[in-house]
């Protein structure tokens, strides 16, 4: 296990404007040596902008970049020694797979023999040892991305930058390759910034996940902390809390959701008695109970989809939107669409947001 103490990358107060549009605003981020940080956020929130600024492809910005103790602000991309992997189609189409991988070494005037040896090792690492002589168009999308990864790693980069490297692939390959990326990243100990809009992906690969919103970092924490303790409703909505249930503050630190009173874990507004709020409740934080249990709410099951160990139900609970409820498939087996179902919120506290 690599100890992640030393700071490898430090972005301070980065700002970027396109005309009057602020793509990034006061963005600061430290990445420890050997760490993999994922930036997670909706399209247009500035993820790519951060990556390009760190990679030196965009030099017009405010703020400072320090890598391994050296201020590299303003240094052009070709001097930064950072490997980049793009969404798709970034391999040089006129070169074979091994020539692609060797590109950075050729630039560095490494001898042909040594280049071949290094590219063979790297291709072996991404399980493409036998495809060195192929042309990029002869490979599948997933294979192409693995070559792109090998090419970026060939220069032993100070930092590896990945911009949604899996978004052009189909679901199954996506999972497989993200695991490979993580394995190789740990093996090589490469400090990595991984950009994605896919929550599951970010959680699966990263040491820490940074949630971005409108050009700012909302929260950066380990996947577990982020999941269990999202600090803002926006972060919460990005880590799987989908139900927004109208609720009302009742006394300090308490909220009434449907027929039930629960503690409030997080609320940015004032705890005024009677204040109208929305409670954020995860689908898995409901429990099926008998109809006469106090605090329970009864509704009608409208949708049901089987997801293997879990079954997702859509329940009509007398509020405008359907409430999404996850039950274990064994519990859900006897429930059919049209049945009535009584539920309570099972978590001790919930996050609350202003309406």
């Amino acid at each position, binding site marked *: 296990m690599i100890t992640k103490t030393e700071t490898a990358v430090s972005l301070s107060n980065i700002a970027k404007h396109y005309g009057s549009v602020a793509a990034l605003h006061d963005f600061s981020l430290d990445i420890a040596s050997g760490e993999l940080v994922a930036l997670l956020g909706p399209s247009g929130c500035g993820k790519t902008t951060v990556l390009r600024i760190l*990679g*030196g*492809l965009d030099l017009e910005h405010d703020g400072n970049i320090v890598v391994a103790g050296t201020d590299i602000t303003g240094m*052009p*991309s*070709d*001097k*930064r*020694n*950072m*490997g*980049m992997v*793009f*969404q798709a*189609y*970034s*391999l*040089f*189409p*006129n*070169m074979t797979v091994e020539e692609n991988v060797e*590109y*950075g070494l*050729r*630039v*560095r005037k490494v001898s042909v023999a040594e280049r071949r040896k290094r590219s063979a090792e790297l291709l072996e690492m991404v399980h493409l040892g036998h495809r060195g002589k192929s*042309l990029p*168009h002869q490979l599948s999308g997933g294979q192409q991305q693995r070559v*792109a990864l090998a*090419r*970026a790693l060939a*220069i032993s980069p100070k930092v590896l*930058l990945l911009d949604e490297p899996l978004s052009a692939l189909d679901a199954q390959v996506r999972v497989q390759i993200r695991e490979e990326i993580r394995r190789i990243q740990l093996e090589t100990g490469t400090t990595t910034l991984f950009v994605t809009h896919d929550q599951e992906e970010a959680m699966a690969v990263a040491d820490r996940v940074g949630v971005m919103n409108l050009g700012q970092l909302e929260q950066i924490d380990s996947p577990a902390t982020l999941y269990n303790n999202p600090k803002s409703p926006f972060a919460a909505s990005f880590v799987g809390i989908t139900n927004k249930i109208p609720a009302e503050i009742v006394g300090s630190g308490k909220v009434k959701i449907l027929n039930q009173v629960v503690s409030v874990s997080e609320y940015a507004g004032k705890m005024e008695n009677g204040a109208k709020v929305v409670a954020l409740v995860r689908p898995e934080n409901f429990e099926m109970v008998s109809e006469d249990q106090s605090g329970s709410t009864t509704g009608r099951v409208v949708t049901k989809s089987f997801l293997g160990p879990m079954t997702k139900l859509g329940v009509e609970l007398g509020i405008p939107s359907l409430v999404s409820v996850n039950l274990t498939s064994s519990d859900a087996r006897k429930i059919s669409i049209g049945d009535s179902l009584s539920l309570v919120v099972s978590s001790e506290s919930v996050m609350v947001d202003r309406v």
Partner: protein
Amino acid sequence: MTIHLENAINRTATRKGGSAVRTLKGFAPLLPFTMVFSFFFVWPIFQIFKNSITGADGKYGLGAYRLLFTKAYLHAFQGSLRLSFFSAITAGLIGALIAFYVHRSSSSMRSIISMASGVLANAGGVPLAFMFIAAFGAQGGIILLLKKIGIDLYGHGFTIFSFSGLVIVYSFFQIPLMILVFTPALDGVRKEWNEASESLGATKTQYLRWVLIPVLFPAYLASTLLLFSSAFSAFATARALIGGNVSLVPLVIGSLIDGNIAVGAEANLGDALAVGMVVISAIVMVFYGLSLRWARKR
């Protein structure tokens, strides 16, 4: 013709596809095209070929072809090939550079230039020749203007009624044609290549030498071959501009048709010359097809 070939190059830019057309089912919609193609293209060529080997007496013979290999007519072929070669190289280079510039400019600029190219690429012929005479002739506006500021082109032996004059005139439809057919190939260039190259430490020159030029070369070659064949078959512009000053195959055929009464083998010499042109064009098209295939692999 231009549009058809332009589409062919367009397909290379999309880099996939093409294989579907090869299936048998894909040919059914091509039936009307095949009929028109046969009627206006295959059949006339066949007729010309038949005439070229049919003497005035109705007997088959290769007399006309024997004439083809005499000095005067070889000279015409040489002139045509030379003119096509130089105008394709010149216009290809200039057109590619303009296309490159267009590719990087704003979208409104792009649509203006591609529209202008579309018009100019088809603006050959007599009007173009007269436009040129008005501008670049001995008494042409631009020539007189240059004279006023002390540059006397004609004094230095320049004339548009010459080989180099023709190269310049041809450029006027060849350059726009190049822009039209080469722009799609440029559009296929991904900015990720440049950025990946840069992040791997390469200079701009290394990127050009190792990536951009090799990637674009096949499409560039295909486009240039297209210019070659367009120049090779151009007739009206050359005819209006230089008449008989420069010996070119289409002009020779024209003068034969115009009715210098010919006898014996010369009666079907025009047909033989035309077959010669068809053969050369076919060879060029084979190379064109090969470079397109090469480009498609990019």
